[in-house]
């Protein structure tokens, strides 16, 4: 499709999101949603190893969170034995796959991107039902998945050249990267295509074989990754698909001695547990297992006294309540500097009140449900149990479905759960700051460091944005919506181990570097000097 020369990192461009205002775009997507609405029930999503479906004793159902009477998919559930089988296959195939030169691996990634593009609206429509994503969010997830394929495909070809070695007279040095081995990918449901695609595609680009365990809530979407790679001609066995329970399939993957690397995105608690188990199980492994973990955030946006509220209010609201707050980059703390504190809260509340909560299959829906009954119950009890002042709670909730009202709370103690813990829901804690120093101090008073935001029109304040403790800092825009190639994404401290997604660093973390040094002097005769 595209010429080879345009396939450099420099020429990389992110996939364009759907422009809903252009003729026919809404209609086309509406049609796909209708088709999904009619057909999407009890989709069969099998464990797939070595290109073949594997029957499992147990199964896992996924539901439409906006209408839980609908079972979207029935996936297999990998047991420890099934995981062992998948790892064995991966352990065999990774040697063959890593022998394919980077450019050849890149071709497969580009072909997978084409496969996704060809099917983009159909897959996005599945997200609407299985993940409860409003249209723009579903479309954004598709774009990001395509972006990772295009980005890592280009990046892997340029990786070796980034390892610079010098060769003095009499010595020939060469260096490069090789795959580490079997990579386990354990992914979340909130970006059910893009996040696992980012992890899977980076590992595959780097020459690893992957065993992929998606979130229990969104197997049907995850399965599209397998299908895209199959369509792209990835050799069988390089990517195995093992939906299953975290405690069973996930735990076995992490502890399996033949797993070299674990890529994980999810909660801090699980991330830390994986880190510990991977370290402990390295004693019975050939590898010192490496864990690449993206964990949560308790992300703050500071609204300075001179901020443009026309911009700040909608952007904060989108960052806090978009996709019902279920993004690791979401804003869950708002820190307002100065006299306009109440004005900001009131306008934000009034803006949130224009949101349309509903089934995401309706294009007008701005906020959908949360992912499952557990999250629903937990979030409602956080709201009901707060000792702070509920300044706003959305009142127009659909009758069925796991909907949580966008809620704004202030008057909270610094140790209050809404200020301290990641809630992963549409709940925003607001705190007042006297000045910018105070605001930054409050913003940084957390163990997380994923995203942070600053709205200000003061050049001095903007120059200080880097003092915010976060991997991704946004000035005068919301904290969500990182784009591959523009905002390499990932946090510090308890938000993750690094490296950032969408960088050469990720490919390095999935590789081992080698260096060969040859002494070219023989019997005092230097090949380099013979003319």
């Amino acid at each position, binding site marked *: 499709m595209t010429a080879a020369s345009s396939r450099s990192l420099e020429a990389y461009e992110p*996939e364009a999101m759907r422009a809903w205002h252009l*003729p026919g775009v809404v209609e086309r997507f509406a049609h796909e949603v209708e088709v999904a609405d009619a057909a999407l029930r009890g989709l069969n999503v099998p464990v797939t190893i070595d290109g073949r479906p594997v029957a499992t004793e147990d199964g896992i159902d996924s539901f439409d969170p906006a209408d839980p009477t609908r079972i979207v998919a029935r996936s297999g559930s990998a047991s420890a034995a099934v995981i062992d089988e998948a790892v064995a296959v991966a352990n065999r195939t990774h040697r063959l796959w890593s022998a394919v030169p980077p450019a050849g691996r890149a071709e497969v990634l580009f072909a997978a991107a084409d496969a996704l593009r060809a099917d983009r609206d159909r897959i996005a429509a599945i997200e609407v039902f299985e993940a409860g994503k409003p249209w723009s969010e579903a479309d954004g997830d598709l774009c990001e998945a395509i972006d990772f394929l295009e980005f890592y495909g280009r990046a892997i070809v340029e990786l070796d050249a980034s390892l610079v070695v010098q060769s003095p007279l009499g010595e020939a040095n060469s260096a490069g990267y090789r795959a580490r081995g079997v990579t386990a990918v354990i992914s979340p449901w909130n970006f059910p295509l893009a996040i696992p695609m980012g992890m899977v595609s980076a590992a595959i680009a780097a020459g690893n074989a992957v065993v992929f365990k998606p979130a229990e809530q969104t197997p049907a979407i995850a399965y599209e990754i397998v299908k895209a790679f199959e369509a792209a001609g990835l050799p069988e066995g390089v990517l195995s698909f093992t939906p299953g329970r975290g405690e069973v399939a996930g735990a076995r993957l992490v502890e399996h001695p033949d797993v070299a690397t674990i890529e994980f995105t999810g909660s801090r608690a699980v991330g830390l547990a994986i880190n510990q188990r991977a370290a402990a199980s390295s004693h019975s492994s050939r590898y010192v297992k490496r864990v690449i973990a993206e964990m949560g955030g308790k992300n703050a946006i500071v609204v300075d006294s*001179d901020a443009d509220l*026309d911009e700040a209010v909608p952007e904060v609201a989108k960052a806090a309540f978009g996709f019902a707050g279920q993004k690791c980059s979401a804003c869950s703390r708002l820190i307002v500097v100065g006299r306009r504190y109440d004005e900001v809260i009131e306008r934000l509340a*009034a803006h949130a*009140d*224009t949101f349309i909560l509903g089934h995401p299959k309706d*294009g007008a829906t701005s906020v959908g449900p949360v992912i499952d009954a557990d999250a629903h119950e937990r979030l409602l009890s956080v709201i009901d149990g707060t000792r702070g002042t509920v300044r706003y709670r959305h009142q127009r909730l659909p009758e069925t479905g796991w909907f949580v009202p966008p809620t704004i709370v202030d008057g909270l103690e610094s140790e209050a759960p809404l200020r301290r813990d990641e809630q992963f829901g549409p709940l925003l804690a607001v705190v007042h700051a006297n000045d910018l120093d105070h605001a930054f101090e409050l913003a940084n008073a957390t163990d997380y460091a994923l995203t942070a935001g600053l709205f200000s029109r*003061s050049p001095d304040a903007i120059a200080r944005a880097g003092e915010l403790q976060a991997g991704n800092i946004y000035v005068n825009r919301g904290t969500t919506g990182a784009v591959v190639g523009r905002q390499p994404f990932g946090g510090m401290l308890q938000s993750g181990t690094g490296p950032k997604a969408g960088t050469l660093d990720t490919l390095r973390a999935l590789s081992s570097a080698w260096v060969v040094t040859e002494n070219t002097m023989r019997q005092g005769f230097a090949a380099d000097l013979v003319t």
Partner: protein
Amino acid sequence: MMTAPIASSSLEATVRAVSGDLDPGDVGLRGRLDEFVIASVMRNHDLRVGLFRFAEAFPAMEGPDDVMAHLRGYLGHDAMPWWVRLPIALAARIPFGSRIAAWAADRGISTMAKNFIGGRRAADVEPLVRRHWDAEVGVIIDALGEKTVTADQADDYAARILDIVAHLGRAAGSWPASPGLERDQLGVLPRVAVAIKPTGLSAKYQPLSAEIALADVRRRLDPIMQAATEHDVMVWFDMEQYAVKTLTQRLFADISHDWPNAHIGIVVQAYLRDSFDDLQRIIAQERDRRVPIGIRLVKGAYWDYETVVASAHGWPQPVYDAKVDTDANFERCSLLLVDNADVVRPSFASHNVRSLAHALAAASVRGLPKSALEIQALHGMGGDLAASAAKAGIRSRIYVPVGELVPGMSYLVRRLLENTSNESFIRQNRSKQMSRDQLLAAPRFTSKEDAA
């Protein structure tokens, strides 16, 4: 309708003749100092950015020290010319310096705002409106608003428009007759007009929630249409960002259908690549309406924004890249409007003498009566132009924004950009670096496709 094309030689000769009727005057910011500032601002990109950003943030600053800090940050650094940098450094050192600086900034920005904004409320602009009327210039009143992100803001915006409609509608009843403004070749015209920005009428105004948005807008718009009908006020639907263009065209079509006796007008932005097609479609849709609609042809006020948004999203550019294409397309659209002046009411809103003279010349070559067209200009930028046109018997109207400084800022920034853009006619005319021939030269499309 099929009409023979106008021969360009006779048209160009007429353009020259007609352009004599249009005097852009000393448009834009006034005074020698302003001219010096503008010339410097145009030369120094950092100064331009610094000044605009400072002005734009000014209404949100809390007291003199805050103003001083912003001044230092935006305009006190080394990239600034000495005559900007030094006074700021001085003000930071002397007693009451920040108060003086804040006072000066306030003066400067208020003066500029007064230049472009007619007043705070409908009542304030009544004398201005009346003065125009007596000089045979009509008005279109625009209510400046914050970006509508809440239902209250939408209600407030609607209430302010209702206030304008009621106030000026009532006042207009007592004005003396002004036949040129009250009739055109197709019938009677209301004395007063208001402009509506549809995004102001609903926080949900976006294509994914089109049905809900339209219903939400109608809840607030129908009372306005009712009042406008009662007070005999024309309602113009301004065109905003490209992302809501289709929505606003739908809204207009609905209103046209549901309020068949109302005087309404829609805007077509010639910088849009699809504007000629839109214009054809709108004319076809509305040609049989009992009260012919107004169509205001403009170039478009959001060029920077559209360019950035499309490029950031990887979308096709909705606007032309080259100014000359916008100008050429404006003229192509003008010809279409002139050729349909029997079924719609064309008006041309521009400060570009060439663009306006071309439309007037085309109408003259076609043998249309003068009353068939209208020209429109902005308060603070096109006053002289409108007055000179009125003197020459061309129906003209001035578009007067009404409102507070904070919500007016985005409007002001758009006007500042126009006053200082190298591409702008106003600027080119004022800088006196181009000959009259150059200023009046016919624009040609840069690519053959567009010219087709």
